[in-house]
């Protein structure tokens, strides 16, 4: 299945021959994967297929055993997490990962990409630019009325949005979302799909998702992972028709 593509800088993100093993178990095995500019690329696959691990590898949370991850011609595998983020890669976790003790405003403000070193953080001022940007993002993620609320008090769906907002405020070129609609109500899903379609202007989005209805709504391209390898790739229609996919994943 491994289509050996030449190293290609046309893609925003090129993952090549990526392998990671935990005590001999290869969670991701010789993987090649490319993400285009402005595309919504969804990764699906059964449990344990290595979906989340791929995201972890890209953002530096897990270190690759072999292979390369190039983002805009920069090698990510050797960078530290915060350096990868500063290259323009944003990552949302499976469970909403927000600062519960802070208000929505402060959550967004902390994520604002300025004053990221110790001295900068000490001298950071909440100027008009920050306030303006926070308001803009909060409108985008449906939270503009809740800016002063403590984040712990938000609903589950609102927390997911807040985390997406926290990524958006950094204006990443690649946004990685791990099950963004898990636990959301139907109406919240619709809003989230809307949101994702809106934010792809000028950036790419990688999504790991189980909810096939939602995948259909948003995906430009789908990759099916199985046991750390790519099983199938292409449009939603194409992978849904692939017998191998039906066999291991959708079939039962």
């Amino acid at each position: 299945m491994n289509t050996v593509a030449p190293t290609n800088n046309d893609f925003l993100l090129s993952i090549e021959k990526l392998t990671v093993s935990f005590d001999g178990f290869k969670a991701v095995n010789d993987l090649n994967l490319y993400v285009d500019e402005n595309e919504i690329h969804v990764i699906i696959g059964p449990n344990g297929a290595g979906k989340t691990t791929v995201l972890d590898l890209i953002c530096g949370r897990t270190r690759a055993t072999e292979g390369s991850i190039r983002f805009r011609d920069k090698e990510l595998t050797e960078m530290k997490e915060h350096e990868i983020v500063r290259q323009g890669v944003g990552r949302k976790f499976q469970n909403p990962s927000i600062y519960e003790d802070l208000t929505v405003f402060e959550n967004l403000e902390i994520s604002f990409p300025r004053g990221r070193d110790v001295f900068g953080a000490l001298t950071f001022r909440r100027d008009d630019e920050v306030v303006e940007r926070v308001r803009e993002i909060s409108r985008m993620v449906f939270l503009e009325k809740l800016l002063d609320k403590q984040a712990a008090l938000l609903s589950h769906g609102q927390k997911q949005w807040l985390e997406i907002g926290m990524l958006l405020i950094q204006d990443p070129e690649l946004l990685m979302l791990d099950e963004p609609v898990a636990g959301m109500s139907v109406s919240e899903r619709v809003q989230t799909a809307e949101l994702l379609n809106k934010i792809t202007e000028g950036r790419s989005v990688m999504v790991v998702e189980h909810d096939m209805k939602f995948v259909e709504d948003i995906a430009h391209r789908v990759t099916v992972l199985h046991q750390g390898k790519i099983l199938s790739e292409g449009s939603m229609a194409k992978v849904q028709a692939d017998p191998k996919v039906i066999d291991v994943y959708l079939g039962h």
Partner: protein
Amino acid sequence: MTSGNSFLTRQELLGLAVVSLLILVVLPASVDIFRLNLIGKYLTYAFVAIGLVLCWGMGGILSLGQGVFFGLGGYCMAMFLKLEASTPEATKIQSTPGIPDFMDWNQLTELPWFWEPFHSFPFTLVAIVALPSLFAFVIGAAMFKRRVGGVYFAIITQAIAAILTILIIGQQGYTGGVNGITDLRTLLGWDIRTDSAKYVLYFVNAGLLIAVIVAAQAVRKSKLGRLLVALRDKEDRVRFSGYDVANFKIFAFCLAAAFSAIGGAMFTLQVGFMSPSFVGIVPSIEMVIYTAVGGRLSIFGAVYGTLLVNWAKTTFSETFPELWLFGLGALFIAVVLVFPNGLAGLYRSYLQPHVDRLLGVKKPADDDEPASDAVPEAAARAAE
């Protein structure tokens, strides 16, 4: 929404005013110099407690070795004072005049090289803050860069406190051993043992404490303060928002160390000696309880917590010496089980509504003090 931006809210301004009034006016006016000197001594522990608010309460980094920094600061000051007291004339009956008496007893015939710079007062002042901060930096860099946190950090800092104590006691020719550095008399020729000197030192100490409170408050109000709370809560989220998390922890730890060291130096000045019994594990853990009693997130609480625990200690140990340890032990358990937010929590639940009404604040401040029930969970998460 603007609350986080202004330097001090009305609430905090009131808090600062009350603390200042208490330690600058009320206490000096109401107790004699003996008690005031005691209070001065307690207040030096408050420096440590405030440092712990920053690094433990806010940042989730529990250090069981703050006594190390308190002690280092105290020893720097003690070395300077001891050298001043050990003039060749004052020590002429020694076999080697001009060196501290305990060195002479240990057959040292010249001043060790690392004592030499402490002849200089400016150097000493710099060293008091710089040495402990540097030490904290080394520990912090080694551990936080490797993502050691929570329990492991606590245990390792505790071991460091134990090591330093054994070292100071063992190297008595250089450090004064278990007796410590004693018999300190003058500071730049000014006799620090007189009542008037004690008054002056008390106010210097109180002034420094207020400065440290303001500094801590400034850090807490800055984005860095919010980042500390954020990384206690969700360290990965902060990291994946593009921050080098270790640097912020190192900063908080170094700042706490510097505060502790100032406290240690003021302790030496007010008490007149420094000994390894302030460096070890027991004092270090006791200092954590001051912070916990005050409410681990509250800077003002740390001051009140320190005063309250020490007042209780003095009172109880005078009246029921046998019962004091029961009381202290129960206090540890109570602040964990019953009042996880300490005095600050009690204040918020019972007093603050009234104060707010008086101040004309519309609703309970929604700035950076989280709702009381959120604290333990957050702390727990940070420790995991």
